[in-house]
């Protein structure tokens, strides 16, 4: 077995949405095989054993796919490894004696609920605005009725890989949700099935995104750099194109 690592975790504690928060520092003994969340589990178990309130953080699948885990580690959403969610980040990327600063996502549209947990329901509302194809169960033609060029299907898939974790917003100095929104617009827009509604979709989703209070993109690229699913900035360009096309050629919505 590998040697223990003695770490200090400096973590944001905030009772609830109304309270103001502050940092607290806790010692924890970890080892390199643990995931970052397992390290927090150990820390929490210790807190509970001392009858203290554990650190609230969100997580579920712990496989990097559900998009629930959300925190900023030493200034980076999901921590130092690229293309990795917090739950898949392992402690071997840290070393004995490190002080690790853990903060919640920061963006006005993602208010802090408690400690490291934030409210990302704005994302749901963006999808509700138009991130779908209007087809009822039972209406569909045969799956092979419309062939789709492999490359196009691939582009669509790559955008569809977004897990809705919100790290893009957390990373963006402008608190912009353009990467997330564009990933959905591109996922559906690249497919013939999705093209039908693309004008309406682009306008409605962008309007909702703006309404939620996300910032505007200055093409900084921090979102792409921190996205655990490596969603590309090309999607934002695709969204801009779709939106401009929709505004100048589509119906008013």
């Amino acid at each position, binding site marked *: *077995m590998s040697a223990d690592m003695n770490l200090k975790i400096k973590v944001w504690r905030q*009772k*609830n949405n109304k309270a103001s928060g502050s940092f607290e520092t806790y010692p924890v003994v970890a080892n390199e*095989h*643990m*995931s970052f*969340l*397992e390290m927090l*589990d*150990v820390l929490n*178990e210790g807190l*509970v*054993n001392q*009858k203290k309130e*554990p650190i*609230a953080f969100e*997580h*579920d*699948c*712990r*496989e990097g*796919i*559900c*998009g629930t885990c959300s925190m900023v580690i030493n200034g980076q959403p999901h921590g130092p*490894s690229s293309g*990795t969610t917090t739950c*898949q980040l*392992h402690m*071997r990327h840290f070393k004995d004696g490190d002080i690790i600063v853990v903060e919640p996502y920061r963006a006005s549209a993602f208010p802090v609920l408690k400690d490291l*947990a934030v409210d*990302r*329901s704005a994302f*749901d509302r963006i*999808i*509700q605005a138009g*991130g*779908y*194809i*209007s*087809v009822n*169960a*039972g*209406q*569909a033609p045969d*799956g*092979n009725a*419309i*062939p*789709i060029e*492999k490359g196009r*299907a*691939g582009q669509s*898939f790559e955008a*569809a*890989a977004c*897990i809705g974790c919100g790290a893009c917003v957390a990373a963006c100095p402008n608190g912009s949700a353009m990467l997330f929104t564009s990933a959905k617009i591109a*996922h*559906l827009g690249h*497919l013939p*099935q999705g093209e039908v509604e693309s004008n309406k979709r682009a306008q409605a989703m962008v309007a909702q995104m703006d309404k939620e209070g996300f910032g505007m993109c200055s093409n900084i690229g921090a979102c792409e750099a921190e996205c655990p699913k490596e969603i590309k900035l090309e999607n934002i360009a695709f969204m801009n194109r779709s939106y401009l096309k929709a505004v100048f050629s589509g119906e008013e919505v």
Partner: protein
Amino acid sequence: MSLNSKIPSGALAEKWTKYKSTMPIVAPNNKRKLEVIVVGTGLAGAAAASSLGELGYSVKCFTFHDSPRRAHSIAAQGGINAAKNYANDGDSVYRLFYDTIKGGDYRAREANVHRLAECSVDIIDQCVAQGVPFAREYGGLLENRSFGGVQVSRTFYARGQTGQQLLIGAYQSLSRQIALGTVQMYNRHEMLELVKVDGKARGIIARNLLTGELERHAAHAVVLATGGYGNVFYLSTNAMMCNVTAAWKSVKKGALMANPCFTQIHPTCIPVSGEYQSKLTLMSESLRNDGRVWVPKKKEDAQAIQQGKLKGVNIKEEDRDYFLERRYPAFGNLVPRDVASRASKVECDKGHGVSPTGLAVFLDFSDAMYRYGKTEANKKGMTGLSDAQIVALGEEVVSAKYGNLFEMYEKITGENPYKEPMKIYPAVHYTMGGVWVDYNLETNVPGLFALGECNFSDHGANRLGASALMQGLADGYFVIPYTIGTFLANEISTPKIKNDLPEFIEAEKATKALIDKLLNIKGNQSVESFHRRLGKIMWEYCGMARNEAGLVKGRQMIRELRAEYYRDVFVPGSNDEYNPELEKAIRVADLLEHGELMMVDALNRNESCGGHFREESVTDDGEAMRKDDEFAYVAAWEWNETEPILHKEPLVFENVELKTRSYK
């Protein structure tokens, strides 16, 4: 109580079609007045809520997640089956039906499984129309691959993220209904109680997880799509928040829990690395298409590996035991999950395991890389390559097929699986058991339906790969929209159910009392520690191999653990805030009861079938022995603290012949 499965009459292949066209339906103007609660937003729940919304019912949908998109279905990797026969390899609805029945070791209902196979075809169409980016061929048509335990290529997939893509599709449909106002979505709401009025399911008590407030929600019918209970083992491939609470509370209100001991243990998971471990990660079954499973022949070698003195790559070919190929020459590394898992356990128990804990076997791709490398070299007309160059070519092919899985493996273990064989070990993955339902997916409580992994229906004693996604979506998109009508057609004159009926008040009070009780124990042990101990008991006594003495002992241990829980658990914080520890405490309380029932069921079923292996019931050469004359029934349990009551639903097979599964 006699269990009426309500299987329609007629020939197997015509049952569903005929039934669909004759069953009672609700007129559109009445649908609006009827309210339906759907609990869960996984494939089954999201599909159900959106299609019921599309039909015009007033739907209220609940999930404890912060968004419907986070449901555990998101994690499914491998694919979804459908009898499309696009591969032209002789697949058909009947063959899918047959494979599923056989794969389930003849412990599922014929009629349900056949309907599932019929619906499978529509699912793919529906998903494509929703924008699910399935893998495609160069010609632009859908691509298929083969998946464990079957001989045709019928699995549709989207890289290693099929579940994610299907769930996003369902989530999008659901989002559309939410926007249209037909579905009212309650995120971060956990169902903690079922409310029955006059014997019918009429609502739920849900806790708002942000404020702790208990809410009474009434409706004409309640649909559960709350997933499986694999987390009773603590360590499993399930997401951390998967639990049995919704199903269990319903069982406590009179629903029956069927075949709870049928759990699937998946052979290819990343082994446990330490005590702190919180969950196990699945490596998709598709890896066994190309990987060879082995352990060192010599115990000394295994020990040296365990101590870190030797590496797998350094063991000579003749000192390797490819035990699946040795024991099952016909299917080799592609034997069904239960068989592969047990074989690995046997080797590790004999001391041939290869991780520090001794609980792991190798999954080796070096042969595949060499083989693919050669084909690739031929294709490109390259000659005179060194072995290393060939392997490098092969690596590219393997990476194109499994790249994301290899990456995931490396992230977790820190080892490079292209250079060293993977280490894998079986882990709990899926629960075939669940709430008992009839052909309409209605439980024995009128108005209460159960879909997806939450019910027991289609997989018998073992589920084939890529068929859970199929079942969840079939249930949600294509079954419940029809079958719920059989209940609701009689409710059109029932006025809106009021949530201030005494039954609701009562149920809310009881829930509040339970929460207060847990908070006030103020003991010394964390919820997590109890959960971990429960998991160990389950794994030890109700895991891959079970026997009478162990099950009796295990049951007793769980009862003691449960008593200790109510004496000594410590739940920090209060009810009226966001309190994940309290949420967990409520879930673990239910798992502590459900675990006991699993032991009871396993003890009762003195046969080996599918994922349930009783050491007492084996053939002479140690293979599982089913006892069709004694146990060809569904064991549906009515819960009570002292002695759960067994109700049997006999399984009648009119269309398939019961055979011993043989993979030799």
